[in-house]
Structures are given as structure tokens and as C-alpha cells.
């Protein structure tokens, strides 16, 4: 019966090609525009590390004096001071922790083989690789001893390894970061991320770094940040050590807590830490404040999905509503004109249910066609977006779930629009039209 209905639908489509095409285009354009903005929204708000996003927590400490405020939604500083970062990193706790900072160097081999190039570099403590699921192709992370002794070592990505040494197995090779000679201890697969969730300070959609060096090098080699440094009080910084001692915020800190009890232990530690620092004259606020946010909370806290995109998604859905009203009107007209034919069918023994189902199949088919056109329209739209914004390369794309969603939305939208006309037409009293004909 279903295939018969599809056959009938196709005949009906061909009988009024202009109107049918108009409906398909209306759905297609509506779905296309909606999917374009929805795809970007989906990519922007997608969980970047779903397998452990609820176990990784960004740490925030309220170390500003009473009355000082920040531009974050809850007035908590986004980053940490060097002093707090170092203390949290070195605390005797059984949790993996990552202290992070963005910097950059001229990368070269001190020879003519490779032209020197500027490369952003991530300063990280050694747990970071494990915490953020970075996988090694060759070698591994630097040792605890190398970390504590500020050894000049690096982990690099496969693509940098190929660029510098022509191979992805460059463990043991040395290269230069400015004038610092570093030895490669590990090569990782390129870190592919569309949201740079671990450091959202300088553009949420920037690419992750390809070179990683130990956190201890900051102090040993006076490496300054390429990210933001923000202060809240007047502190003259004349030499680098002034910055290390200052209350300025310039480092990111993450902790991996696998369950609620681990989280409680860490929270208790933080409370205790703040109390200790209070004695040393810091954390002067009456109410000690700290925040632990998991990856998804962190992303929404930073308002990564930009406002324009939300407006576009809202407007697109309203647009879709217009398209649906449009289709509903045309369906109504199309179906009601067919009422005499339905009268005959009913007289020949078709049940209300069968007539209703026949028409629902027909609108479903329109929806399917519309969905396919919608995907094409959306691809064009996304192509246009990628052309306008280079860093949207990874964002302005339809993944499988979005590709499946398009016809699904189209078909269900059409069926919703078709319910009323189909209900009207299946209530045709057979006698009415037989008589007037």
C-alpha cells in the first residue's frame, strides 16, 4: 500500500508541477537557510572532547580585592596568577593537572635547511597530553625530572616534525626556539579541534598549537605570554620576576576529576589553599570564591557561540515558519481541489484513515525533496561562509548528524503543515461531490 501511495504522490506531483515545485523550493530554501545557521551553531556548541568533557575542570580563583570586578559573567577572573598556578600544580594531590600558557618563537634549525618561521607554542605541564587525549606517534612526554629541572625539550606535532625534519619520527632531533636549542622527545598527531576550549582567551576558533614545551621553562627562560595579561591593581613590572610575583592573570589551569568525591577533595583543597594564602595577605575578600567548570560549562560561560549566530538561528527558524505557512496554504488549495476525486475514492471504499495516510505520504515526499534541496542550499550557504571567514573552515560544515537532520526536519515540518489539509480532505463526505458532479 505504501508504494501505491508513493506512486499516487508522484502522479499528483506531476499533475501540478508548478505548484509542487514551488512547495519543494519553499521547503528547500527554508531548510537550507535554517541548516546553514544551525550547522554553524552545532559546530560551535559541539562538545570538543565528549568522552571526558565532564571530567576536565577549568579552575578559577577570586584573588582580587573586595570591590574589584571583572568582565566575566560572574566577575571571576578567567585566568590565574603565576603564583597560584605554580602552587596548584605542585600541590601534593592525586589528580592530573595541566598548567598552560600560549607563547611563540621563531622556529629554526640554525642552518639554511629550513627558512625560519614564527610558530605559536603551548607551554604545558606534562599531564596535559594525557588529559586532553593527545596521542603520541613517536616517543612520549618529557619526564618528571625534565619537567622539574626545566630541561629544554619539546613535544611537536607530526606536521611540524615533517616540516622541520622531513619525517614524523624526529625524536632525539634538536631545533631552535629563538636562541634556545630544544630536543624533541615526542611527536603527536596534529591536534584537531574546532573550539580551542583549553584556552579561549584569544579567539575560540583559533587552531591549537603544534609545539609544546615544559611549564617550568617559563621561569627558567623568562618566557612571556602571547596571550592576555590582565591586572586589576597597579603593579610596576620592571623585570620578568616582577610579573611572576604579581597579581596579574595570564595562565590557564585545568584539573581532571573523575567523580564527585574527587571533586569534593579538590574543592576542599582549594578552600584550604585560599585560607592559607589569606594568612599571607592575599585573597582579601570576605567570601572565598573559586569556580570549577567542566568543558561544556566553560564553553557556555565564555559565550563561545557568538550572538550573531544565535540571532541567525532564531531568524532562520522564523523564516522556516513562513515557508511552512506558505506550504500549508498551497497544500490546502491543492488538496481541496482534489476533494471530488477523494469523494470517488471514498465511495469506492477507501477508509478515512487510508485517505489521510495517502495525503501524509504525499507531503512527506515533498518534504524529502525539499530536504535534499535544503542540503544543497545549505552547502552553498556554508561555502559562502567559509569564503568570508577563514577561521570558519572547520565550523561552516555539515557533519553527518546535520546531514541527517536536514531531511528529518524537512519531512516532519511538511507533515506538520500537511496534517490539517489532509484531515480536511479525508473528511470529505463521499456523496457531496458525487452529486454536484
Amino acid at each position, binding site marked *: 500500500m505504501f508504494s501505491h501511495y508513493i506512486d499516487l504522490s508522484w502522479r499528483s506531483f506531476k499533475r501540478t508541477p508548478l505548484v509542487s515545485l514551488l512547495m519543494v523550493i519553499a521547503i528547500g530554501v527554508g531548510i537550507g537557510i535554517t541548516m546553514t545557521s544551525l550547522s554553524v551553531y552545532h559546530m560551535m556548541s559541539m562538545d570538543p572532547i565528549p568522552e571526558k568533557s565532564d571530567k576536565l575542570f577549568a579552575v578559577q580563583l577570586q584573588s582580587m580585592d573586595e570591590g574589584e570586578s571583572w568582565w566575566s559573567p560572574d566577575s571571576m577572573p578567567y585566568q590565574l596568577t603565576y603564583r597560584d598556578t605554580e602552587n596548584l600544580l605542585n600541590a601534593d594531590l592525586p589528580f592530573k593537572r595541566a598548567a598552560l600558557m600560549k607563547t611563540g618563537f621563531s622556529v629554526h634549525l640554525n642552518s639554511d635547511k629550513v627558512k625560519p618561521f614564527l610558530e605559536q607554542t603551548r607551554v604545558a605541564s606534562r599531564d596535559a597530553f594525557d588529559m586532553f587525549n593527545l596521542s603520541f606517534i613517536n616517543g612520549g612526554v618529557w619526564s618528571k625530572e625534565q619537567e622539574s629541572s626545566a630541561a629544554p625539550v619539546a613535544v611537536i606535532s607530526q606536521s611540524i616534525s615533517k616540516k622541520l625534519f622531513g619525517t614524523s619520527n624526529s625524536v632525539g632531533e634538536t631545533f631552535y626556539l629563538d636562541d634556545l636549542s630544544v630536543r624533541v622527545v615526542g611527536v603527536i598527531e596534529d591536534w584537531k579541534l574546532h573550539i580551542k576550549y583549553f584556552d579561549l582567551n584569544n579567539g575560540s576558533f583559533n587552531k591549537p598549537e603544534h609545539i609544546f614545551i615544559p611549564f617550568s621553562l617559563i621561569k627558567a627562560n623568562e618566557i612571556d605570554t602571547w596571550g592576555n595579561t590582565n591586572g586589576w591593581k597597579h603593579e610596576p613590572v620592571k623585570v620578568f620576576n616582577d610579573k611572576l610575583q604579581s597579581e596579574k592573570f595570564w595562565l590557564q589551569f585545568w584539573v581532571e576529576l573523575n567523580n564527585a568525591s574527587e571533586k569534593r577533595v579538590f574543592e576542599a583543597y582549594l578552600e584550604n589553599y585560599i585560607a592559607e594564602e589569606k594568612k599571607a595577605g592575599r585573597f582579601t575578600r570576605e567570601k572565598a570564591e573559586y569556580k570549577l567548570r567542566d568543558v561544556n560549562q566553560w564553553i557556555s560561560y565564555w559565550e563561545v557561540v557568538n550572538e550573531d549566530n544565535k540571532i*541567525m538561528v532564531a531568524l532562520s527558524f522564523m523564516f522556516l515558519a513562513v515557508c511552512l*505557512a506558505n506550504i500549508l496554504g498551497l497544500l490546502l488549495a491543492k488538496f481541496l481541489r482534489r476533494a471530488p476525486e477523494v469523494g470517488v475514492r471514498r465511495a469506492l471504499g477507501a477508509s478515512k484513515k487510508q485517505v489521510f495516510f495517502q495525503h501524509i505520504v504525499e507531503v512527506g515526499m515533498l518534504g524529502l525533496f525539499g530536504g535534499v534541496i535544503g542540503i544543497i542550499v545549505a552547502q552553498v550557504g556554508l561555502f559562502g561562509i567559509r569564503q568570508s571567514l577563514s577561521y570558519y573552515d572547520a565550523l561552516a560544515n555539515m557533519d553527518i548528524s546535520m546531514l541527517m537532520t536536514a531531511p528529518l526536519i524537512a519531512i516532519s515540518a511538511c507533515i506538520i503543515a500537511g496534517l490539517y489539509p489532509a484531515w480536511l480532505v479525508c473528511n470529505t463526505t463521499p456523496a457531496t461531490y458525487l452529486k454536484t458532479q
Partner: protein
Amino acid sequence: MLEIKPIFNALLRSKVGAVLLLIQIAITTAIVSNAAFIIKDRLDYLNQPTGYEEENIFKFNVMTFGTDVDLIQQVDLDEQMLRAMPGVVDAVQISAVPLSGGGSSTGFRLKPVPEKSKSVNASYFETDEHGLNTLGVNLIAGRNFTEDEVVLNRDYSKFPKVALATKALMDELYPGEDGLGKVIYMGDQPLTIVGIIGMMKGPWLKLENRKDKSVLLPTVSPGKLHQFLVRTEPERRAEVMKQIESAMHSNYAKRVIQDLTGLDVKKADYVAEDRLMMRMLVILISVLVLVTALGIFGLTLFNINKRTKQIGTRRALGARKSAIISYFVVENSLICIAGLVLGVCGAVLLGQQLMAHYSVPALSNWYVAITAVAVFVMSLLAVIGPARRAANIDPSIATRTI
């Protein structure tokens, strides 16, 4: 005949059709007026004057990895070399690039820290006496700082005594007074304002209360990574830019030249999202208006098909063609006006929602009014074709049995 169910009478049918049309027109009006308003808002933002000859200025980064050179001396040598290049008007090392989205800002005060004082946040640019000319901004009062006043610094131990500031900053710090010659504080350091700059946008166009407030500090303190700004004669920028990398490397080789970009391109990158949003909205409202017009067109055609006999009868009863056309135009206008009334309310509501949840300014009523008129005209255009077709229905159709 009496058995005809009320749901099948034409009245109800056309009522549902009319309601659907009304909804379309209402939503269209609501979306288009708000989208048009946002577009205008973005256009104003994108086209605002900046104070720069953007197409004649470019910047580049220098990352020095060699350690056998004194950076301050090297900057001086580089500047001399750049300024001597044919086609270059002026060149300077500067701590931040305007319109680029990257730079420094701090609170400027009437009294030194730690005294309580009014503080106004402004961007600052560290540069030498060529900064003003390279930026090409307009000094409206006072003088530029001199070479003697420029502080050469490796560690911020010395601090300049004078500075240039924009009028917007001084007007806010000293409302109603002439800012020239006044002293402002950066932390605990006093700065005498020797010159006032008129129009000069800072690094962040998005920050409404900071974009016009900037300070030029006579300081040269290049780090390993520092930036140059170059202004060329008109039409000669591309030619100069091509030579930069080799020229800089011939001066000193152990460094990387990077991000060699025109100021207009920097600005375009910075505003790319806004431009994208604007384009998407333009496409959205064009397609939306088209879809709504097609909807009106399609529904009117269907109505006419449904009423062929009726139209023939009316013609037989003495209706002129114009009477048939006006019948459909009036019918459509009634629906349209009802839709517009609803749409205007919807537009205002949507505008309020957008303003409440997002950083969209209050919707101007003009946009709603103009959109309403435009939608009305659009609906007339969409209905006129089918209506003319209806008028051409042969009156003899009335005597045919089917």
C-alpha cells in the same frame, strides 16, 4: 446540496488561506524590519570613519631570534632604512596596530595611584616622534612630541613625561575644559598632554566606549617580537610591501618577518564576522521576501482557479475587467493590512527581545514603517499578475455547465 459540510464551504476555505497569508506577511514584516535594522547598524559600524588612510598603511611583525644585536639600535636602523625607501611617507616602530583587534589599554586618571580618582579606560600606543605622521591622524591642538622626549627603554625603568591624547579621552577626563597642557596619570606616572588628536580609532572598533580614546606615548621598548607601521604614497603600497622582507633581512638576518598586512585588510579581518552577519541577513531577507511574494502569487492563482465560474458570473452580471482586478487587489490588501498590523506588533516585540538578550540597539520605528510599506507594495506586485489573469476569464464560462 444541503449535505455539504460547513468545513467544505468556500468561506472557511478562503478564511484559512487568508489566515496563512496573514501569518506569512506578519512574520515577514517582523523579520525584515529587524534584519534591515541590524544590517543598517552593521553598515554604519563597517563604514565608520577611522582617521586613517587605510589603503596607504601597512604593518608587519619582526621576530628577532638573533642575540648579537641591540634591539633599540636595530629599530633605529630599520626605521631609517624604511623611511628612505622610495614611495614611503613615514615608518615607525609601534606597540600596537589600530583597527587590528590587538593592543593594550589601561585606566588613565586625574590623580596618581593610590589616590582615589576618576579613571577612564583608553588604548595606548608606544611609539616615537614619527608615530603621529605615520598614522596620518589629525593633530587639532598643541604639538607632536620631540625626539628628545622619546624614552628608550629595555625594562620600563624610565617613563615618558609627555603624551598625545585624543579629544574624546580628554573631553571625558576634563569635561568642558581644554585638555591641552593638562596632566593625566598612568598608574602613578604623570603625563603632560602636549597635543590633542582629533579622529583616531583605537585597536578595538567593537568597544564602543574605548574605540575613540587613545594615548600616544613617546616610548621605544621593542621586545623580541615588535611591529612596524608604514605609510606610503597613494598607489605605491603594494610595491613597497613586496620589498619589505628582503630589505629587513638585508639589514639583519636573524629574524622572521611576519604578518605583512595592509591596514584595510587588518580592519577587514577584524570586522569579518560583522560583514558575514550582514551578508547573511541580506540574503535572508531577500529570499524571505521572495518566498512570501511567491506564496501570495500561488495562493491568489489557486483562489482564481477555484473561483473561475464565479468570476465568469460576475463578468456576465456586468462587472468590468477593472472591477475583477480591484476585487482581488482589495481582497489581498485587506489580508495584507491585517498581516501588517500584526507584523508591526511582532517587529516591535522581536526588536525588544533582541535588545533584551543581545547587544542589538533599540529598533527604530522608521524601519518598521518602511518595511510595512515595502511589504504592502510587494504584495500588490505579487497579486496584480494573477488578478489580471482573472480579469481575462471569459464571461461565457457562466453558461457552461461544468
